């Protein structure tokens, strides 16, 4: 029986993908090299790693209003994460996900998703149901 994690109703389509998890935060402007598709801020825990087509699982969003435009621009170039899972999203990333039609969920009943989900986990996200399923573990 796969592990089901209940969360708040989210944004965007239902998707499946691979988790890239860190106990860190997210800003498209501050943290990413959007040309290469990697985390570029040296202090970030995912520094140097590619986020393209991954389901990012992070604590919260910070800073920069720019991320609201950037997710759509990244998605148009197919250099975007497939979805973002936060413990708690901020307004900008939720707005950016809505604009980009990118999947985003947050506020989990069982607590911080960066502690519930492991790097490399296969996930199914159903934003309308407020449900994330870990497919590879039971």
């Amino acid at each position, binding site marked *: 029986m796969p592990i089901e994690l209940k969360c708040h*109703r989210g944004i965007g389509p239902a998707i499946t993908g691979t988790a890239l998890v860190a106990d860190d935060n997210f800003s498209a402007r501050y943290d990413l090299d959007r040309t290469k598709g990697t985390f570029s801020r040296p202090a970030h825990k995912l520094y140097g790693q590619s986020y393209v087509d991954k389901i990012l699982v992070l604590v919260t*969003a910070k800073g920069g209003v720019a991320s609201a*435009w950037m997710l759509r621009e990244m998605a148009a170039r197919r250099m975007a994460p497939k979805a973002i899972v936060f413990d708690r999203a901020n307004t900008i990333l939720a*707005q950016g996900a809505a604009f980009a039609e990118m999947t985003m969920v947050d506020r989990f009943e069982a607590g911080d998703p960066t502690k519930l989900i492991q790097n490399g986990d296969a996930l199914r996200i159903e934003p309308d149901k407020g449900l994330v399923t870990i497919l590879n573990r039971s």
Partner: protein
Amino acid sequence: MLAGEHGRARQWALRHQIDVGSFFDAPDFVVVGQAHVMADTESLGEEGVRWLESLAELPPAERRVRVPTITDPRGVDFDTYKRLRQTDAMAEIEARAIRAFESLGVLMTNTCINYQTILPAVRGEHLAMGDTGVVIYSNSVMGACSNFEGGPSALAAGLTGRTPRYGYHLDRHRAGTRLFQVTREARDLADWGALGGIIGRATNSYWEVPVVAGIGRPPNSDELKHFGAALASFGSVALFHMLSVTPEAPTLGAAFQGRSVPVAQTIGEAEIQEFYAIYAAKGDKVDVVVFGAPQLSLLEFSRLADLLDGRRVHGATTLVVTTSPEIKFAADRMGLTRRIEDAGGIVAAGICFYQSYAREMAKANGWQRLVTNSAKLVNIIGGYGYKPTLASTERCVDCAISGRIA
């Protein structure tokens, strides 16, 4: 509107607002007095500009904004982009974005200090402000109500004249959640930024509201500007209260809306020095000194001209000053721009450095070591490949003259 009777732009706008409002459990909408759109071309990209152009092609009745809608700094200042080694391609995409915005009825103010230069918010006024520094200043110092509204959402608010009622539009989210006791006086704008940065790092959530006590002398608008911009940048914070200074904090009880007051975290000399030490690089060659983030007020501009009088920026160092078009016009008229440029500085209007293709500018100019009095900028610019150092306004000028970090 949702059925498309008011056209495709307003239909998109309302759909977008419902998606976002549902995510945050907004009960309804609130009418806004102004919208402020962050939409520099670096973040828009070709995709974003084309999207704006598709709205700009609609008939006027369908595309014009319904409340005053103004803009945050742009990616390019047409008068200085060549000196900053930005490209013609950047200027071209910038011109396209401006044309599209103008056809939507957006006022191209190109500023992140609109609360000092355009129309300050009023207590209780609901707004849809982009730029985290503008939001935190409007909410905290003026007592207005805005969330961080990204470019698409702020434009949606301009088109519908309202925004979903969630977050800082609701009184219950405006109560203090953390308490900070400051025991060291801030002496320079960089100190105020450091203070904001320290509290931002400790707070680190959009949903936390720090309350700051122990501020002796009431800070001025520029000091609060740097404090708030750093707090918002480091912590994603949208509202703070400063005891006896900001309107919702006449007393600790008021700041916490009668809820229990948490134990204070103290910030003193040691914490401030630790913050500077993160970015210290004594003896390093200085590639670029930046005054901006947020854009300079007329008074900051004037002080900088005083500090540069009779001196000359080092040949291997570039000094960049960014301000709003209104302040630039005033500074030109008062001879301040000439004094800064005579000393070898570059004065750019309507941009704010980090929103201006910072990575490409670094490559084109061979810049790496950046010195600034803006804590917000040191937080952001590392992600663009720079090595930033935070220093007082006076020390920044000294670094620009000597070409080294003293």
